[in-house]
């Protein structure tokens, strides 16, 4: 016996020390930033330099929250053969200020393979730490009676 169009939820959560991200930016500079974050994420986290020729500054708590979201998405995707590029998971800020998850590359393939068709994300930061919670709707086309606990 089978159950059709069964829906399940997956949840991922992660916590990141803002000081760890700040230390990475301080030590490795833009190499770190550009290996982990997309151009959109970098733009969202950039603070204006104090002078026109000064270095760009980043809102470390915002970078840390985005990294937490990427980790939370990976927990939802549950990769078994290597994790996707950090930049294939993007926290995309919408006009109203809230965010959504956009995937590309291998992250998108993993989501497709898992039947995940929708993500919700919430970010927060406080007292030196940033956190993210990601909820995904995982739509199984077909589940066996054993999986749904029947028989």
């Amino acid at each position, binding site marked *: 016996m089978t159950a059709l169009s069964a829906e399940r939820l997956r949840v991922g959560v992660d916590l*990141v020390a803002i000081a*760890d*991200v700040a230390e*990475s930016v301080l*030590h*490795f500079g833009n*190499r*770190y930033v550009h*290996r*982990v974050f997309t151009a959109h994420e970098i733009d969202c986290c950039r603070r204006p330099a104090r002078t026109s020729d000064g270095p760009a500054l980043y809102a470390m708590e915002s970078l840390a929250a985005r*990294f937490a979201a990427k*980790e939370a998405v*990976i927990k939802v995707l549950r990769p078994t053969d*290597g*994790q996707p*590029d*950090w930049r294939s998971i993007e926290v995309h800020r919408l006009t109203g200020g809230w965010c959504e998850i956009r995937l590309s590359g291998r992250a998108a393939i993993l989501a497709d393979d898992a039947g995940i068709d929708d993500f919700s994300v919430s970010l927060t930061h406080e007292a030196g730490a940033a956190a993210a919670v990601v909820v995904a709707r995982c739509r199984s086309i077909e589940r066996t009676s054993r999986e749904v606990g029947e028989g």
Partner: protein
Amino acid sequence: MTTNETIRQVVADHGRLAVPIESLADGDDLFAAGMTSHASINVMLALEDAFDFEFPEKMLKKSTFESVAAMSAGVTELTGT
């Protein structure tokens, strides 16, 4: 300094392990020893600085950085030494 010694120094400096690197064998799981995913990014960038190369995207996976032995294999693959 040998490749192995350099990798161990990088892990000691950037891996944020819960135990001294000296207490771990080359094949021990560094993530089990306390290295976080975020710390592994620092290890990756520090290895690039130490050996003057850039990890290609196909090697940017957890297994590349899971142990000193795995990193040594990756360095050897990229430097040919």
